[in-house]
């Protein structure tokens, strides 16, 4: 099994940390992982993306041009990455702020209203975990116990008290994900 994922959105949305938690969880489950950020003269509010690869085998390239899954959190990222999903692949997007919706017919498209729900529940800080939950519902690549360990490893000890809140957000995400178009 090899899963190549791009996660993209605004800086500050937790794109990089979502990728890091997923990657650390993969390690805890004894998988090979790579996490490659777009780094550059970027700042809060600018765009940020990260490529995460989870695999049972040694990973060749951490740089890829087509993805099994794209997790998209803003319009610019949707415009940039919709075309890079492999045919038959998965695109998940948060409709908040989206005006031009994805139009491909050869990929599975799901939406998750994570931003709105996070606002309603006062969970803005774990918005990214809601999105991760939606993804894990569709592709349960990493078991919940390893996500727990991944959170323990990714978060500094002083933030470990927030792990239950993160796990709750993942569970909420699993209930929010909706099919928009299926191949």
């Amino acid at each position, binding site marked *: 099994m090899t899963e190549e994922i791009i996660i993209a959105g605004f800086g500050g949305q937790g794109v990089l940390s979502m990728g890091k938690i997923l990657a650390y969880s993969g390690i805890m489950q004894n998988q090979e*992982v790579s996490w490659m950020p777009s*780094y*550059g003269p970027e700042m809060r509010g600018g765009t940020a993306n990260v490529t995460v690869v989870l695999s049972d085998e040694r990973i*060749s*390239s951490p740089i890829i041009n087509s993805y099994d899954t794209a997790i998209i959190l803003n319009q610019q990222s949707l415009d940039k990455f919709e075309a890079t999903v492999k045919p038959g692949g998965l695109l998940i997007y948060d409709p908040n702020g989206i005006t031009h919706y994805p139009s491909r017919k050869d990929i599975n498209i799901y939406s998750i209203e994570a931003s709105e729900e996070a606002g309603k529940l006062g969970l803005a800080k774990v918005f990214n975990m809601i999105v991760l939950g939606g993804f894990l519902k569709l592709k349960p690549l990493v078991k919940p116990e390893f996500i727990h360990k991944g959170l323990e490893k990714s978060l500094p000890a002083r933030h470990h008290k927030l792990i239950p809140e993160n796990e709750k957000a993942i569970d909420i995400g699993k209930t929010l994900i909706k099919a928009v178009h299926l191949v």
Partner: protein
Amino acid sequence: MKELKLMKGNEAVAEAAIRAGCDGYFGYPITPQSEIMEYLMYQDPQKTTGMVVLQAESEVAAINMVYGGASCGKKVMTSSSSPGISLKQEGISYIAGAELPCLIVNIVRGGPGLGTIQPSQSDYFQSTKGGGHGDYRLIVLAPSSVQEMADFAGLGFDLAFKYRNPVLILGDGVIGQMMEKVELDEFKPRWTEEEIRRNTPWSTMGKLNNRERNIITSLDLDSHKQEKHVAHLRDKYLEIEKNEVRYEEFQCEDAEYLIVAYGSSARISQKAVELARAKGIKVGLLRPITLFPFPKKPLLNYVGKIKGILTVEMSLGQMIEDVKLAVECKVKVEHFGRFGGIIPTPDEVVVALEKQIIGG
């Protein structure tokens, strides 16, 4: 079991240096390698192993602090990215001339000049052909994973002390910034004063009564002596070429074509090999791990067995010269590269292979 961590390449080389018993790091921040010093400052190894971590006032100061520390037989290092490494070249030449061990990390960004902060491999000539003035060589290690960033810190110090020669870890923005799984070595204690005296009888640790004084210098105004010194350096470099060539082959057994690439380009090329093989193209990858000494003989062995070589580099084509020399121009060798901070995709490499080597 060894400790497993998810780390950036920059963090891994820093952590591994502490664990290898490094005595001192001297640096000056620059993207895309600032995490090295940032990580070291945060870990504050002064409190645990006693290692000194110091932000110098400039790159020139940092490399000369390394010169000083190395003279005393200490395991010292510095790191920077391309423009900063250019500033250090005078010091590196002096250190090579004075035959001192040290570890230098270059996380390359696009040049020339201040260039860009994105990944590049355009410092190959500078790293392998001198960089500073004079007849000298660095031992150049080219990691292609975060694990190798960790492994090469210890290996780098070992080689540096074995040959009394500076060792350069040549990474790039991809290797420095990406995170992968790393297995870290156990902590090795720093050398005690007694161990330094035993392991580095040449060092200036204070004169003992039973020996002549040690002198560390790269200056000799007597040209006959200097010629003898440079000939000694030559013999040392030949010894290094004999003993220390490292490389890795991937799917080369039945290959009709070969890709030669190092560092992050090798990772991208490995994926390209997988894609090309799926299309029925018999291609393999040879990845030089040491750029000096360059794996000349392993490449020469392919002459007569393969139809062509594509070198993949994030530059205008620098390593290609060593590949051509290695195969004595008896095989067609072509370069494919992106540059200025642009990273090639595996698909682009396959297209280049088809157009330039198979179709060309």
